[in-house]
């Protein structure tokens, strides 16, 4: 059995992939965007409520592979209660870790996604929700990983 595959598809990821948290519409969302990953046809909608510069609530919807669904699920958990700056800093940190292979020890639960580094073509799956979050906060409405 393939170690890299086991590393990629850890328990936590499969769990979040199959039972995503915060997977629902958010009626009072202050920010919202749609993201596409043409590679898998993944499509995700991220909605957040930002009050006084802080992410009060974050949800997502859509359909995607285990990696993108788990990543979105973990993201909504990770940014809750963080300031917008902190959330964006976490995205930078996360992206640097999976895209540029940089060391990081501030990722918390997001660390389970680091297995994706061995699968360059899947990195976009892992970052889609984050790109979409960024687009939502910057008021762009649409994000794409390409």
């Amino acid at each position, binding site marked *: 059995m393939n170690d890299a595959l086991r590393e990629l598809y850890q328990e936590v990821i499969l769990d979040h992939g199959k039972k995503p948290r915060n997977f629902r519409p958010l009626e009072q969302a202050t920010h919202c965007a749609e993201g596409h990953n043409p590679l898998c*046809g993944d499509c995700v909608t991220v909605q957040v409520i930002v009050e006084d510069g802080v992410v009060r609530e974050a949800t997502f919807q859509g359909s995607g592979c285990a990696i993108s669904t788990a990543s979105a699920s973990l993201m909504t958990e990770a940014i809750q209660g963080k300031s917008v700056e902190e959330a964006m800093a976490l995205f930078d940190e996360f992206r640097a870790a999976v895209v540029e292979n940089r060391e990081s020890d501030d990722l918390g639960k997001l660390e389970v996604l680091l297995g994706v580094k061995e699968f360059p073509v899947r990195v976009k799956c892992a970052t889609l929700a984050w790109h979409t979050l960024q687009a939502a906060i910057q008021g762009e409405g649409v994000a794409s990983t390409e």
Partner: protein
Amino acid sequence: MSVASTVPASIDLAALRERFPALRQQVHGRPLVYLDNAATTQRPDVVIRATVDFYEKDNANVHRGVHTLSQRATRDFEEARQTVRAFVDAAHDAEILFTKGCTEAINLVAATWGRTMLREGDEILLSTMEHHANIVPWQLVAEMTGATIRPIPIDDRGQIDLSAYGSMLTERVKLVGIVHVSNSIGTINPVAEITAMAHRVGARVMIDGAQALAHQKVSVRDLDVDFYAMSGHKVYGPTGIGALYGKRDLLEAMPPYQAGGDMIRTVTFEKTTFNDLPNRFEPGTPNIAGAIGWAAALNFVDRMGIDAIGRHEQTLTRYAQHRLSEIDGLRLVGTADDKAGIVAFSLEGIHPHDIGTVLDRNGVAIRAGHHCTMPLMQRFGLPATVRASFAMYTSEAEIDALVAAVQQAKEILG
């Protein structure tokens, strides 16, 4: 060697696979199991050799050349046209227009025939299993002309509903667009029958033949189709080359598509007169090496025998469907009676893209996604499927490798 004999009864797979250099490699430490042939096939040595030979010996531009290399290039290029003509059994060389692929061939028809012949109130019928290449060009024309597009329904096994189609055929219908072999689910559509029905109400027929040429004998004359689009790279040829077959009288009446050198007779700033077929539709320097390489591929297929290839692939398809359907939670998508070597499926609760990643680590190359047939995916209520597609060189052992890898994917992802 049986590969080179003229009418082989069956295929000597070991010898045949030797002819395809790309098959001799490992991926992630496993022998490559290439089951993405509907996306593009591999190229046999003769195709690579023909390409190299052209560049090393005869490389020159075609047409208007008085020097020897140019004459050789022109001769080989026009012989390639004859080879394509013979392969699809067209009546005249002038009915074969080289394009960069199937997509361009369909766009050519939509932008010339479509824009001049379609009017407000006209209808275009397209099957629900069309590739985007035979949908979106017609949407653009429809927008421009006021024609409307109506989807022809398919049944749960992925077959065109012929009686529904029959009842949609009225005098308003001007074009029927049908994929000969579905790239997503492998259905072989009854093109002759569909065409005859369309002709009865005076509609023209555009057949997307991208997936058909590699799997079965195609005679555009027997099918009586009006337009037939092809891609070289789907039938063991190079990338960047394809062709449109069109009935001569239709092509003669069509306005030019792209414009430039070699498609004109005289140019002044006031007035330009256009050249005869096929040059009128082939402005600029064509993909000369591509056409020559494609002809080598078609000759190779001819030597193998398209019927033997078709039989081989159908045997594999039945075997693959049988083996896969034994896997718990696996749903075969597209189970038409008449199928070419394409098998699509989904696994309960597991995204095809994740399956694709596990398979790749096992050396098994398949495609996961919507396969450029979103309306078909919608019809089956799936965002995506896993698709394994076969070629003349595919072996039963490779199907076994696929099945084993799918089982591993279930274990890891289930």
